[in-house]
C-alpha cells in the first residue's frame, strides 16, 4: 500500500513559493550590492545570501523529485549547478547572472504553478532561460577558482565513492522515497547498485509500510562528496549512511552526517516559525466567538431590564465576561492576520523590472511591513497595490534627464508605508515625481465626457477624477499601464473591502495616495436604522452624514426621481420603505431622517424612520443557506437574537445614481433654482 503523497503537495507548493520569495529578495540584495560597487570591482557576495538562494533551489529540486514534477526537477537542477559554481567561488555573480537568476525564479514560479493547477506552460519562456543557463554552463569557469579546490577540504574532492545507505524502517512515514535518492545519484555519475535484503522478514510478517531494504552503492565519475551529501540531506536523519572514497578509505564517515545535519538545521531556520491553519478551521473559531459576543449582548440586555440593584453581581460577572470575550475575540482574529510584508515583498522586484524597462532610477523605501491585516484583505489588496506602484513608476516618476532639468536628484524615491490606526490600517504610497497635472486631467476628463466643459472644480475634486472609470493621462498606451485597468478598479477593490482611498498631489513635487483598510472583514462598525418595523444596518464607513430634510428641499425630476441638495451638489433620495416594501404607512420626510451615504463614488440619501445607534456587528453570510439578495450585502444578529440585514450601499446607490461628478454637473443644470435653505445636519458621524 503506497502512501498517498499528494497530501503533501500543498505544503510543498507553499514552501516553494515562500522560498522563491526569499530567493528573489536575496538576488535583489546582491544586485543592489553590485550597483553600489565600482563597475569593474568584483564584489564578494555575502555567503549567507548565496546559501539562502542555494537552499531554496535545492529544496525545490528535492521536493519536485519526490513528487515527480520532472520539469521542475530538471530546471532546478540546472540552476543548482550554476549556483554550485558560484558558491564554490568558481564564478562571480555579475549583473547578467543576477538578471538571469531572477528570470529563472519566474520560470520556477510558472513551472510550479503549472504543476499545481495542471495548466499548460508556454515552453518558449522556459526554453529561453534554460538555454541561457546551459550556455553559461558550457563557458569555461574562470581560472581563479581552481586554487580553492586544491586547498579545499577533502570533502570537496572528486573521485569514486562507496556508499552504504540503510534507511530506517520508518522512512516512508516521513514521506521520503529511497528511489528518489537512487535516481538522483544516478544523475551524478555511473551508479552501481547492490541491494541488501538481509532485513526482509518472512512474507507473512511483511509490513508493506516498513522499509526493509538497504543498498550498497558505487558511484564513479567526477563527483564530490558534497554533491553526494546534498542528495542525502533530506533523509539524513532517517538512515544510516556511510560515504567512503574508494581511493581514500580513511575519511571518517562521521564528517558526512555532520554536514547533512547542519544543512537541515539551516533549512529549519530558513523556514522560520510559522503555522499553517486551514481557513475553514479559522472561520469556525471566528463564528463561535461571534456567537459568544451575541450571547453576551443578550445577557446584557436582560440585566438592563432587571434594574441596578438585583443585577449588581450579575453585572460584575458580565463585565468580566465581556473583557474575556474581547480578549478571546482579538486573539482569534489575530490568527487570521498576516503581515502586510507579504504584499510589500513583491514590490522590490516590480520596481526593479519596471524602472530598468523605462530607464528610470528609483529607490524604493518600504516601512511598516510588520503591520498585520486580515488574510482576505491582504489577498485582495495585493493587486491594487502593485497596480498603484506600477502607475506611479509609469506616470509619476520622471526620467533622470527630466529630473535633472527640474533640479531634482536623478534617483527618484517611492515610499511605501503601512501603519495601524485604531481599527484601520493606513497604507501610504508616495512618490516624488511630477505630480498630477491638473490641467491635463481636467482636459482629458472633458474629452471623455466625464465632466462638463465649463465645470469649476477644486484641486481635490480634480485629483479625484483619476478614480473615474476609463481615465488615463498617459499619452500612449504602454505595456505597463493604460490598458483600461485604471485607478477606478483600484478604488472599487478598496471600497469592496470597506476601505477608502484619497489622493493628494502637488505639481512637480509628487503624489501621495492614502489607503484606509479595515483590519478584518468579519466584524463591521455599523449604524442601526429603523425602517418600518425592521432594523437594518448601514456600514459606518459608507455614511457621510445624516440630516433632517424639509419637504420643500426635495425636488422631483420629470421621471419621478427625487433629489435633494447636499452641500454643493444634488443627490438622489431613496425612500427605503418603498424599496423594501414591507410595512406600508408613514413614509414621511418630516419625521424621517436622511442618511447620506457614498459608495463607488456615488452619493445618495437614504430616508429611514430613525437612527438606532452605532454598534459593532458580526457579519453573517446570507449565501451559506440561501442566496444573494439585491440591496442586501449580508446579515447579522442583534442583541435580542433576531436577524438584521446589512444594506448593500453600493448596490442601492448604484441602482439610482450616476457617478458623483457627472451627476453634479448635469443635474445642477436640470434644476434651475437650487434650494436657498441649507440643510441642517442632525448628527455628524465623522
Amino acid at each position, binding site marked *: 500500500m503506497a502512501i498517498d503523497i499528494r497530501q503533501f503537495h500543498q505544503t510543498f507548493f507553499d514552501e516553494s513559493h515562500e522560498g522563491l520569495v526569499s530567493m528573489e529578495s536575496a538576488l535583489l540584495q546582491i544586485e543592489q550590492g553590485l550597483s553600489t560597487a565600482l563597475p569593474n570591482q568584483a564584489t564578494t557576495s555575502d555567503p549567507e545570501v548565496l546559501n539562502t538562494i542555494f537552499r531554496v533551489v535545492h529544496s525545490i529540486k528535492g521536493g519536485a523529485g519526490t513528487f515527480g514534477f520532472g520539469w521542475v526537477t530538471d530546471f532546478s537542477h540546472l540552476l543548482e549547478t550554476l549556483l554550485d559554481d558560484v558558491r564554490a567561488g568558481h564564478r562571480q555573480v555579475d549583473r547578467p547572472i543576477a538578471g538571469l537568476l531572477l528570470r529563472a525564479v519566474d520560470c520556477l514560479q510558472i513551472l510550479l504553478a503549472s504543476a499545481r493547477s495542471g495548466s499548460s506552460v508556454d515552453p518558449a519562456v522556459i526554453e529561453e532561460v534554460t538555454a541561457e543557463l546551459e550556455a553559461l554552463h558550457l563557458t569555461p569557469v574562470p581560472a581563479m577558482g581552481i586554487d580553492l579546490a586544491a586547498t579545499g577540504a577533502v570533502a570537496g574532492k572528486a573521485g569514486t565513492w562507496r556508499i552504504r545507505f540503510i534507511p530506517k524502517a520508518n522512512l516512508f512515514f516521513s514521506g521520503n522515497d529511497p528511489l528518489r535518492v537512487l535516481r538522483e545519484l544516478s544523475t551524478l555519475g555511473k551508479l552501481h547498485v547492490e541491494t541488501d535484503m538481509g532485513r526482509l522478514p518472512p512474507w507473512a510478517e511483511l509490513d508493506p509500510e516498513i522499509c526493509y531494504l538497504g543498498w550498497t552503492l558505487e558511484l564513479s565519475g567526477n563527483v564530490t562528496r558534497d554533491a553526494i551529501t546534498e542528495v542525502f540531506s533530506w533523509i539524513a536523519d532517517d538512515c544510516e549512511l556511510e560515504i567512503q572514497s574508494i581511493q581514500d578509505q580513511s575519511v571518517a564517515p562521521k564528517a558526512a552526517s555532520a554536514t547533512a545535519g547542519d544543512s537541515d538545521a539551516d533549512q529549519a531556520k530558513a523556514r522560520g516559525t510559522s503555522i499553517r491553519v486551514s481557513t475553514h478551521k479559522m472561520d469556525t473559531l471566528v463564528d463561535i466567538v461571534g456567537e459568544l459576543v451575541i450571547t453576551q449582548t443578550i445577557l446584557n440586555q436582560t440585566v438592563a431590564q432587571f434594574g441596578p440593584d438585583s443585577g449588581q453581581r450579575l453585572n460584575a460577572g458580565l463585565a468580566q465576561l465581556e473583557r474575556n470575550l474581547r480578549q478571546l475575540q482579538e486573539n482569534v482574529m489575530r490568527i487570521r492576520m498576516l503581515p502586510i510584508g507579504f504584499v510589500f515583498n513583491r514590490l522590490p522586484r516590480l520596481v526593479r523590472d519596471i524602472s530598468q524597462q523605462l530607464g528610470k532610477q528609483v529607490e524604493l523605501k518600504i516601512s511598516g511591513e510588520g503591520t498585520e491585516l486580515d488574510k482576505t484583505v491582504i489577498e485582495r489588496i495585493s493587486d491594487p497595490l502593485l497596480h498603484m506602484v506600477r502607475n506611479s513608476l509609469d506616470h509619476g516618476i520622471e526620467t533622470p534627464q527630466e529630473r535633472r532639468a527640474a533640479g531634482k536628484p536623478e534617483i527618484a524615491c517611492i515610499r511605501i508605508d503601512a501603519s495601524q490606526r485604531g481599527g484601520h490600517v493606513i497604507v501610504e504610497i508616495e512618490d516624488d515625481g511630477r505630480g498630477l497635472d491638473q490641467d491635463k486631467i481636467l482636459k482629458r476628463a472633458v474629452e471623455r465626457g466625464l465632466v462638463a466643459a465649463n465645470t469649476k472644480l477644486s484641486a481635490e475634486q480634480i485629483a479625484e477624477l483619476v478614480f473615474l472609470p476609463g481615465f488615463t493621462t498617459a499619452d500612449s498606451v504602454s505595456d505597463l499601464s493604460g490598458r483600461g485597468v485604471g485607478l477606478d478598479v483600484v478604488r472599487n477593490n478598496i471600497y469592496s473591502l470597506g476601505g477608502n482611498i484619497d489622493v493628494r498631489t502637488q505639481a512637480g513635487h509628487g503624489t501621495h495616495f492614502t489607503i484606509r483598510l479595515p483590519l478584518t472583514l468579519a466584524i463591521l462598525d455599523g449604524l442601526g436604522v429603523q425602517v418600518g418595523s425592521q432594523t437594518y444596518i448601514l456600514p459606518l464607513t459608507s455614511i457621510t452624514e445624516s440630516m433632517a430634510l424639509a419637504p420643500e428641499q426635495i425636488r422631483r425630476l420629470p421621471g419621478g426621481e427625487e433629489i435633494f441638495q447636499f452641500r454643493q451638489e444634488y443627490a438622489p433620495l431613496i425612500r427605503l420603505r418603498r424599496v423594501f*416594501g414591507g410595512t*406600508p404607512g408613514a413614509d414621511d420626510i418630516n419625521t424621517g431622517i436622511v442618511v447620506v451615504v457614498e459608495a463607488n463614488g456615488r452619493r445618495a440619501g437614504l430616508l429611514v424612520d430613525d437612527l438606532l445607534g452605532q454598534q459593532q456587528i458580526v457579519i453573517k453570510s446570507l449565501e451559506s443557506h*440561501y*442566496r444573494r439578495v439585491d440591496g442586501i450585502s449580508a446579515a447579522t*444578529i442583534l442583541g435580542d437574537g433576531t*436577524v438584521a440585514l446589512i444594506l448593500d450601499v453600493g448596490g442601492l446607490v448604484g441602482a439610482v445614481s450616476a457617478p458623483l461628478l457627472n451627476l453634479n454637473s448635469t443635474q445642477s443644470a436640470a434644476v434651475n433654482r437650487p434650494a436657498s435653505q441649507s440643510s441642517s445636519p442632525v448628527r455628524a458621524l465623522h
Partner: protein
Amino acid sequence: MQTASAVDSYLAQTNTDTLCLTFRLSDQDYGIAISKVQEIREWTKVTPLPSSPSYIRGMLNLRGAIVPVIDLRLRFGLDALEHDSSTVIIVVNVGSRLAGILVDTVSDVINVDYDQRRALPEFEGHANRRFIDGLAQIDDRLMVLLNVEKLVTPEDLAPVPQTAGETEQRGAV
C-alpha cells in the same frame, strides 16, 4: 398500463421502508424523510427579506446561522394562516444547507412500509408536482411524501421578478 414503468422505477429507487415525520397543512397530511430533519422549533418571529418570493417568510437565527424559512402554505399556493401555538418550523438539513419549513402542526413520526406506498397518478402541468416523491396509504388516510431537496434547493428559492419600490403581494404563488 402507462403508469407501470413509473411505478416500477419509483419503487425501485425507494424500495425500503422510510421513517417519516408527518405534518399537516390545511387538513392534508404530508411526510418528509426524518433523516433530513434536524430539529423542530416553535414559531418565532423572522426577519422578512426584501426582493424575495412571498413564501420566503424571512431569515431565522439558528444559533448563529442565518437560515431561510419557507412558508409551505404559500409555497403550495394555499391561503396564509395566522400563526398559533401549534405552528412550527421544521428545520431540514440538505447537503450543507439548512432551511426552515413552516407548517400548521407536526403530527407524528411513522414508518412508511414498502407496501403502503402508492404511485402518484400522472397529471399534467402542475408546477408543484416536482415537490412530490409519492403517496402513501396509512390506514384510511392518504399521505403525500415530499421531496425535501426539491423544496429547499436554491433554484427553487429564486426571487420572483419584481420592480423596486413595489410592495410585494402576499398570497398564492
